């Protein structure tokens, strides 16, 4: 099972800055292992963000996003105490969802 994300959501004016770290290999499928065998692609394809359960952003990623991905964006109108949920799905169909409270 994958490790939890680290989500920080901090109010800045009339919005909240959301910073997310995800634990993922983001393997390109172009690399070879020590024995010369291609390491299969394995990467997060879709990331969604919800504010109090309502979808506010969807991102699609390719394998060139760096390992253990970082994402930063701002949610308008988010206040302290609001819930930010980040979810991802990778190309193997694995998924993970974590929540943070805006502070």
């Amino acid at each position, binding site marked *: 099972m994958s*490790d*939890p994300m*680290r989500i*920080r959501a901090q109010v800045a004016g009339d919005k909240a800055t959301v*910073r997310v*770290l*995800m*634990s993922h*290999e983001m393997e390109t499928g172009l690399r070879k292992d020590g024995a010369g065998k291609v390491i299969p692609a394995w990467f997060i394809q879709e990331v969604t963000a919800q504010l109090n359960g309502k979808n506010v952003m969807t991102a699609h990623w390719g394998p060139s996003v*760096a*390992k*253990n991905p*970082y994402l*930063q964006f701002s949610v308008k109108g988010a206040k302290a105490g609001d819930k930010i949920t980040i979810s991802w799905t990778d190309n193997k169909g694995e998924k993970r969802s974590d929540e943070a409270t805006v502070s």
Partner: protein
Amino acid sequence: MLKISVPLILAILSTAALSQQKSATDAIAEYRAMLADGNPAELFEARGEDLWKMKRGPKNASLEQCNLGKGPGVVKGAFVELPRWFADTGKVQDLESRLLTCMEALQGFDAKAIAATPFGKGEQINLEGLTAWISAESRGMRFNLPQAHVQEQINYELGKRAFFYRAGPYDFSCASCHGQAGKRIRLQDLPELTKNPGDGVGFAAWPAYRVSSGEMWSMQRRLNDCYRQQRFPYPGYASDVTIALGVYMGVNAKGAQSVAPALKR
């Protein structure tokens, strides 16, 4: 978490850049500032804390009674006093070798087998998480290794000799790269480790998340790769020479503020 905002650092850097052509070093500083907020080491810290508290191993026990030098279960402040002498093992131990002792004594793991496991595999992955979290619990504290025990003093002397030991096909020693201030390899600044190189530099910056490989490296792994680049044979995990070097560098770093786990190239 960083206190200074990244946009602020960038603003300062870009203002400075207006007056003159940015040097490669400035550009690299800018790159590092951009990465400073959001160090993936945080992911490993979280895992390490869980591993500390989790019941695991043949004895199905947690590490919460592990004595890292400040008494059973005391984690805060332990990292900046390691390596140190431990009476129960009769040895000077660094964080990693002490964890092996605890994993064997408390959880029933085979310490020798873990030490022989390649980096990035099996229990070695868990050790990287544990060292990330334990070091993070001393973040901002200053290195203050004990030197009261005669074995701690002898280890310092041996570490110093090991540091200057030139051999192998390239005639390198640790001092080849880390014996002078203000030098670099390619664009990498090299800390001078024969004295306190400053807050959050050198010994005070490991464990660290390695950007190049996307892995968490403890000091043991850092030393292992130093010896690889030194063209030496392979140092055993938690072997005597690695502990002695830890004592030498750690004592020299007295007063340096720990930023571990840091972010490195």
